[in-house]
């Protein structure tokens, strides 16, 4: 990738946009979601591009007040891209407002999915896994490590992707899509994610069976018998039972209530 020289004005706008891109969820609501955050992030760009042209400014603001929703990091990428497109729109007229809106809309879904799998399902799990490991032993260092690994990386990501969006414009997402690497990236990320989930299931999920059957003189501790088949086999069984219920569309709230009921009844019967 070639280095690109930014003008003084561009640098100023990009810096301001970077800081404002942290306000992604400002005044978040169910109808327009991140629209206000996007408008605020676009303000420096719009002010810089359109200057005194009040009519065009109004149009641009209305454009970016539309429904918007994606992950917080590609949010910056799309803002950078929108900056490039607005500039193109003003200077060359090759892109019209309609196109800016449709490109924004087209990018929301795929970028949200891609970054959710990278940040939320992979990086977060790694960061939390390390932090949980440290904190469960009473080591407070887990907290700064978690913020560093998962929070600061979001900011770095925003900084990089804002510039990337501005510089490489529309061709970027096209390239990843057409090269077919998107699926590969998601798959590799989920290998890591799944391994970490498996590891954490092993450390934290526990079916505390405390059930002893008395057969004449001898007593059988059921938990030990079950665990001798494979350690924690009940935990895995529970997890996959829950997974199949979720796949069938059961709401988590009902699963929580169900487990509560099972635990209570089990405790009453002396199983737990």
């Amino acid at each position, binding site marked *: 990738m070639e280095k690109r020289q930014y003008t003084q004005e561009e640098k100023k706008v990009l810096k301001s946009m970077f800081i404002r891109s942290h306000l992604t969820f400002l005044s978040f609501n169910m109808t327009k979601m991140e629209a*206000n955050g996007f408008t605020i992030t676009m303000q420096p760009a719009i002010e810089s591009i359109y200057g005194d042209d009040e009519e065009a400014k109004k149009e641009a603001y209305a454009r970016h007040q539309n429904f918007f929703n994606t992950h917080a990091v590609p949010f910056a990428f799309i803002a950078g891209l929108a900056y490039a497109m607005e500039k193109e729109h003003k200077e060359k007229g090759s892109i019209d407002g309609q196109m800016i809106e449709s490109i924004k809309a087209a990018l929301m879904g795929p970028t949200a999915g891609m970054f959710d799998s990278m940040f939320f399902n992979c990086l977060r799990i790694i960061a939390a896994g390390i932090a949980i490991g440290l904190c469960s032993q009473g080591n407070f260092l887990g907290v700064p490590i*978690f913020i560093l690994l998962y929070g600061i990386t979001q900011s770095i990501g925003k900084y990089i992707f804002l510039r990337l969006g501005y510089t490489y414009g529309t061709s970027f997402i096209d390239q990843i899509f057409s090269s077919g690497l998107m699926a590969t990236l998601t798959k590799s990320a989920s290998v890591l994610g799944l391994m970490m989930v498996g590891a954490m299931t092993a450390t934290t999920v526990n079916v505390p069976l405390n059930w002893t059957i008395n057969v004449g003189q001898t007593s059988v501790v059921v938990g030990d018998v079950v665990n001798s088949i494979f350690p924690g086999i009940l935990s895995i069984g529970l997890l996959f039972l829950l997974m199949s219920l979720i796949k069938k569309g059961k709401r988590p709230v009902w699963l929580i209530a169900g487990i509560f009921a099972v635990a209570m009844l089990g405790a009453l019967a002396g199983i737990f």
Partner: protein
Amino acid sequence: MSIMTAAVIGTIVYWVIYVLDPYIFSWQCINRPIVIAPALGLLLGDFQTGIIMGAALESIFMGISAIGGQIPADALSATVVSVSYTILTGADAETGLAIALPIGTVMASVNSMFMSLWSAIAPYWEKLAVSGKPNKFLAYNLIFSCVIAPIPGALVMFFGLAFGVTGLNNALAALPPFVMAGLGAASSMMIAIGFAILTSMIWSKEVGCFFFVGYVMVKILGMDSLSIAIIGAAIAITMFFREKSMIDMKKELMAAGVQQDEGEEDFF
């Protein structure tokens, strides 16, 4: 420390975290139990319990958050209440953990109720945005998100902490022992819900087996999470480049195939 002081501290922590994440700084980072619980523990005078409960609560809430826009349980309020409860009453952490999810569920519905309510002012934001006063728009948004938006949750939080914790404690003391055993069992099994949601989101037939690799690494080999992350990263990177080269190869083959076809056409 009196209950009132603790309730005020808990409410302030709730407020500050609510504003920092997601509005000002990050998304799903500062408002995770692993960050809140130690911070609250420090303020309430029991850092160690805060840290340990942070680890346990993070495990519970790992998967139960922001799935497809619907949040089944609010990690922030659940953490604040369960950590305050544990530290103030000196109860064991397991009881605190068991009350976390029910509270989180209640608060999540309170939050989503107000989230829908705030949709009502969306037309106002639109009018303000096109009015050509960018600084006013920014300032009003900041005031709304930092001052008005946290109020309903903070109020519930304050009353819950001020009057709920003692009430809860008395109620729990009066319960028969099987209830406590059941609560303990429920809290260690509820963690599975979060992981189940998470697993079903990233599960695919092709790579699903790696879940068990991770499981065995901990359960049988007793490895720590960082080592597993390193091995997992190595596998993921290898896989990525192998598939990439396969895709490249496929493209080359296709390109070669096209050329061959052209050649044959010429020949005939």
